[in-house]
């Protein structure tokens, strides 16, 4: 299945871009996505452990099961204000 990845702040710098379409096996979890990403995009690997993950604009834990077309964003702890 295909998901849409978004990167922000330090994760965007490491990814070298803001968005990425990503292919995953059906019913993959957020944790599996991160593992796979570390393999395909080694420059992201050092950032993945500390990064936050949202799925369809809601914070999501590693065990979240993904679906076709999900929008998954990776970013560091927020620093707005």
């Amino acid at each position, binding site marked *: 299945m295909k998901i849409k990845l978004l990167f922000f702040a330090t994760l965007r710098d490491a990814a070298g871009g803001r968005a990425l379409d990503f292919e995953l096996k059906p019913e993959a979890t957020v944790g599996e996505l991160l593992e796979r990403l570390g393999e395909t995009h080694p420059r992201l690997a050092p950032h993945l452990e500390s990064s936050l993950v*949202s799925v369809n*604009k809601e914070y999501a834990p590693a065990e979240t099961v993904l679906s076709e077309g999900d929008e998954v964003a990776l970013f560091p702890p927020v620093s707005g204000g």
Partner: protein
Amino acid sequence: MAGLLNHFAVTEEQLDLNALLAGITRDSTGAAAIFTGMVRGRSSRPGFPAETNYLEYEAYVPMAEEKMRQVAGEIRERWPDVEGIAIVQRIGVLYPRTPTVLIACTAAHRDTGVFEAARYGIDRLKQIVPIWKKEVGPGGAEWIQGDHRPSPGVD
């Protein structure tokens, strides 16, 4: 929740406090507490950059506006007398002295928790609303990283 005076925005425009306040004022409103944050050009607090040329903000806009709505919901739960809530974050390149963020809460009277509500609003924004800033100073550029790890389902 029709009729609630809510205004949430991530914007590149200058914050207009007069307009934002008018937008959350109705006939029963008698008091407003407003918080604004500004870019600090210099700081003497340990852990903060001594000198800043500018900050560059970015946001995950649709999620940020969703999370602002959530913060407003938490405020209304805690301070049910609050009438209007505005939460606005400016993004882009922002120079010292520029207001970057605004949280405003209105109510009929000032003893309704409006001050505490505005304080709560900025505290929560800095925890869960997906916005980041890069500090550019004499020593170069650096992303400022928050220290809150949201709990899914709670944050």
